């Protein structure tokens, strides 16, 4: 017996999401024009925000959706950065293609590291990722051609003659430093948009549905045919790729690298975790909100040195205790607003009511 449901339809969009789609496009357009509209300082601030956003979205995908709590993501930032430096210094490749190479190499690095860390669960996994990051840091610190523990700088010409710099100079009369700022900024913008786009698409795809199932109940997910291990491995690889790209991009802009800086737990993992947790883990909106708050906090309090970090630590603790779903989570729970909805809503059909509680 089959029951025909002629008017059945599945919708994934809400009014808020249609609005936010427009807003996103406008923001993107405005973002692209930013180097012509705002000061260089603002462009650099935006670069910082965007790269941190990429790191935060990646960690959020890993921890918030795949349940893999890593405190060792700095391994991909540092490795990506070193791969880029290696490609530029040793092979004379232009920094921009070198960034791509770095992303790919980071994803490749994820294979052997997953081999170790995926044997571990929960807190063990977290510690395991940290140790792996230390091992990679110590190994790279032995690589004398890239400066060993001292670190090294990108050749000045590499950045100055980077693809596109000449073009910008000719077209808009930008100074090389300004032009390379603009280029790295655009790359960061594209990377951030692509990361969010990728994560959003993933979550709305069949794989995303499987991922959500694994997050909610791994045992049941396996029982209905979801390959939880593969799913997690895939996410781990994807985040390694995105994090590696971000790391390489950040260090194109910094132009100087050392193992301690590139593999800093504080800069590339602790801050990122705070951003995600304070903003709202397990949502796409959370890290966006979090990174903006983080930036404001940093600017307001940077001159207070250790007080700033102390406040950040306290804010993280308080959020975890009193609003474990973060600021966006709390907001969304109260208002039902979601800018990036992933719900599949069944509408139409004989007796479907389009009930109000369509938000989770």
């Amino acid at each position, binding site marked *: 017996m089959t029951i025909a449901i002629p008017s059945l339809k599945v919708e994934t969009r809400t009014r808020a999401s249609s609005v936010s789609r427009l807003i996103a496009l406008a923001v993107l357009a405005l973002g692209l024009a930013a180097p012509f509209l705002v000061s260089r300082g603002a462009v650099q601030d935006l670069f910082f925000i965007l790269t941190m956003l990429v790191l935060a979205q990646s960690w959020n995908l890993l921890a918030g959706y795949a349940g893999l709590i890593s405190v060792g993501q700095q391994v991909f930032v540092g490795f990506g950065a070193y791969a880029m430096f290696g490609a530029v210094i040793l092979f004379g490749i232009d920094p921009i293609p070198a960034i791509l190479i770095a992303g790919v190499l980071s994803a490749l690095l994820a294979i052997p590291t997953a081999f170790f860390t995926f044997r571990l669960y929960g807190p063990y996994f977290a510690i395991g990722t940290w140790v792996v990051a230390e091992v990679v840091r110590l190994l790279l610190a032995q690589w004398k051609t890239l400066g060993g*523990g*001292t670190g090294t700088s990108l050749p000045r010409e590499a950045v100055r003659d980077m693809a596109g710099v000449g073009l910008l100079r000719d077209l808009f009369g930008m100074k090389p430093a300004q032009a390379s700022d603009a280029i790295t900024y655009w790359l960061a913008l594209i990377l951030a948009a692509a990361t969010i786009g990728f994560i959003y698409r993933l979550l709305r795809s069949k794989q995303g549905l499987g991922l959500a199932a694994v997050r909610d109940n791994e045992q049941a997910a396996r029982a209905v045919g979801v390959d939880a291990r593969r799913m997690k491995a895939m996410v781990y690889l994807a985040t390694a790729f995105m994090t590696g790209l971000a790391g390489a991009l950040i260090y194109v802009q910094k132009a100087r690298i050392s193992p301690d800086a590139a593999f800093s737990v504080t800069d590339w993992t602790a801050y990122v975790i705070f951003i995600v947790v304070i903003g709202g883990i397990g949502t796409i909106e959370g890290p966006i909100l979090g990174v903006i708050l983080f930036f404001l906090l940093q600017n307001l309090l940077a001159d207070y040195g250790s007080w700033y970090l102390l406040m950040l630590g306290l804010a993280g603790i308080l959020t975890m205790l009193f609003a474990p779903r973060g600021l966006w989570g709390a907001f969304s729970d109260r208002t039902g607003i979601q800018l990036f909805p992933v719900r599949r809503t069944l509408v139409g059909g004989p007796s479907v009511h389009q009930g109000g509680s369509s938000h989770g």
Partner: protein
Amino acid sequence: QNAAIKLGYVSPQTGPLAAFGEADSFVIDAFLMAAKAKGLNYEIIVKDSQSNPNRAAEVAKQLIVDDEVNLMLVASTPETTNPVATTAEAEGMPCISTVAPWQPWFIGQQGNPGDPASWKPFDYAFHFFWGLEDVIAVFTNMWAQVETNKKVGGLFPNDGDGNAWGDKVVGFPPVLEKMGYSLNDPGRYQNMTDDFSAQINAFKAGQCEIITGVVIPPDFTTFWNQAKQQGFVPKVASIGKALLFPQAVEALGNAGHNLSSEVWWSPSHPFKSSLTGETSAEVAAAFTKTTGRPWTQPIGFAHALFELAVDALTRAEDPTDGDAVAAAIAATRLDTLVGPIAWDGKGLPPFAAKNIAKTPLVGGQWRLKDGGGYDLVITDNKTAPNIPTGGTMEAIA
């Protein structure tokens, strides 16, 4: 009245390197007062690197882009000076840097430090300090005062300083060999190592009577205690970095007696400030009076940094033009609190001639005072005879 000239200053004021930045606010306050008295209009924007190289690069960018400073000043350890100088160079911002031996500063900023043929000078980044050749000369001069078997044990970590000191080309090994010392270098260790038995065993086996290296304070404490426990007591221990600050030596208890170290500045240095006319002794005394803390070596260099800034900016045709300021820096001839400074390539290999100016270096030994605490006594001045000694080298008991 002209708009104020803006100086950006980056140093580690918090974090593990904070001892280096300890004198900053004292030096800056004194400088602003002196500048005002002279009718100069300067604004100084100070940024804390938090001892973090990432942060140092970031604040340097902010100073250049947001604050639009006219000149970048940076001090203390390659971890701080290198990211800042790299950023300034990329941005076309003139930069004066100090308190890092020149090799880790210069070579450490090259794309491929292992390939001297690829090294290039900088257009905007200038550095003044001594180099490894100086510290080698000072150390060996000190060692020559004591009867030893000329067997040296080396402690070089895998960091900016350690790699430079231990370098087979520009570091200690080639020079020591030439001078008839044999160097026992077990290899680069990581900072914050908990056990030095491998090194101690190697030094014992090699019958080393002299220990040298560039070690961070916690590691030196670990090493020195362990060495004593293992019955390894060299006649001479000349260590860079770990013995700079009196607090660090005091942390060794009585075991700090007669340890020796490089001395780049002290109250007995016979130099005067070009800005205030004060002598070294006067500046040191003022510091102790204001802060209640003993004098430290970075005071003189932080002070000199500002002397150089004023000098270059006054001479520059247009202090707001980076190229003009860079040209003025390159043409400097100034007698500062740390000695005469000129980027004239004196005592330097050709590749570094443009960007480095050297300051005099002597050697000293920490001596226990009767009432507790330590004195740093200058024990060797062959490298800079104008700086008076306060005693001669003694072997460690």
